[in-house]
């Protein structure tokens, strides 16, 4: 009797917590009722296609607008180059917007399908401009950081020179500084090369020019690694300078303690 009672209690306890879980599972597994009406399903299909096409067009327009902002912030393009880029992007945006209007008014499913496909197939400017401007912007940033590091390196040189004048052996620090400067110079070259390679690319050559984009990307990555190495050199120089200072302080304090006490 005892066992039966405890079993019933246990089962009821378990089901009190498990039931909602099963209910939830059943809720998820419930499938929507199938509509057999073919005209309704065709209408739904057109609606779905319309919706997706508009989403894609909006996504592209949004990204192209961001590219305009990026282009305007690039320092290593002439104002004429910037204007040319912006004009091309604006044209692309306008044609995408008119395509969006056409897609909305399309009633023939075949025409609609062709228009929707053209969002991807016929708008090469977008496909070219996204990687092109991203590479130009990244290369520009690379060159900017390299400039900042040149200034940093000059300051480090001043401190090394001061230490040298004070009679410290700074040969290792000078070697590091030379390496740092070489890396910074290389990063600048890489940035300039990347911009030079992608600037002349046109939408008509797409996708034949994808390999050039890939090489430009690698150039930027190489430039970035140059800067990372230059930074590490800079850190080592600072540590060396700090160590030098500490040593000096140590030797000065040693001198103080070694001073002979006055004899009485």
């Amino acid at each position: 009797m005892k066992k039966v009672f405890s079993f019933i209690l246990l089962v009821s306890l378990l089901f009190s917590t498990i039931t909602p879980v099963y209910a939830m599972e059943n809720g998820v597994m419930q499938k929507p009722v199938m509509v057999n009406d073919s005209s309704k399903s065709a209408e739904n299909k057109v609606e779905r296609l319309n919706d997706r096409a508009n989403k894609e067009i909006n996504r592209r327009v949004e990204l192209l607008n961001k590219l305009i902002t990026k282009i305007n912030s690039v320092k290593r393009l002439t104002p004429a180059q910037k204007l040319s880029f912006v004009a091309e992007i604006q044209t692309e945006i306008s044609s995408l917007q008119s395509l969006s209007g056409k897609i909305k008014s399309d009633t023939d499913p075949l025409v609609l399908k062709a228009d929707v496909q053209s969002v991807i197939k016929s708008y090469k400017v977008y496909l070219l401009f996204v990687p092109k401007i991203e590479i130009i912007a990244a290369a520009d940033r690379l060159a900017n950081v390299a400039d900042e590091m040149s200034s940093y390196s000059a300051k480090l040189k001043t401190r090394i020179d001061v230490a040298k004048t004070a009679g410290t052996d700074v040969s290792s620090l000078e070697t590091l500084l030379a390496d740092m400067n070489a890396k910074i110079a290389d990063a600048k070259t890489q940035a300039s090369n990347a911009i030079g390679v992608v600037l002349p690319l046109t939408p008509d050559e797409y996708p034949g020019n994808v390999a050039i984009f890939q090489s430009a990307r690698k150039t930027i990555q190489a430039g970035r690694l140059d800067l990372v190495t230059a930074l590490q050199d800079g850190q080592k120089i600072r540590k060396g300078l700090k160590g030098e200072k500490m040593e000096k302080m140590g030797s000065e304090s040693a001198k103080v303690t070694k001073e002979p006490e006055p004899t009485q």
Partner: protein
Amino acid sequence: MLARLFPFLAIEWRLFGSCDISLFYFILTLLTRYKFWFTLNIVMDNQEPVLQQQTPTPNGASVASTPDLNASPAQNQAPIQTQTTTLPSQEVKKGNGKKLLVGLVIATIVALGVFAIFSLRPTPSIKKSVNGGKSNSSQTVNTSIAPSPTSTDPQLDQETQKIDNSMKNLDKDVKSVDQGFNDTPVNLN
């Protein structure tokens, strides 16, 4: 006793461990359920026939001390020499009390263990930051050169801070280049 506990633990883990229900509630439920379970056992174990207190008769035979209505007055006047003994039901109660205590201790340890696992497990965002920058392009190299607190050159510190920020922005730009290559349109088929 552990065999009794484990099926419960498995169920609790499945129901609460996988869900985002407060751990506090989980521990509370665990404790109260086991407490209830053991208390139930004690109640059941104590539902045994009432053991009668026995009083030894002068001739040595034991007779139930329950007042017998049919007994003669002479019998009732017999010298009462009660002997106090530990009742078996009390022993059972003691044993169950121990069981309950051990059970509660184990349940608490297990619950604390579960809590520790949950609290030590890194959240997705932390995981992301741990594995962050694992893109094919960034070739993660720690570029942070933030000045050390013991630094004595504020001019250089300022410079390094500026470069540090610029490098972070450069990393973002390099990532954007990769995103530009991997532009994935909405499925238009």
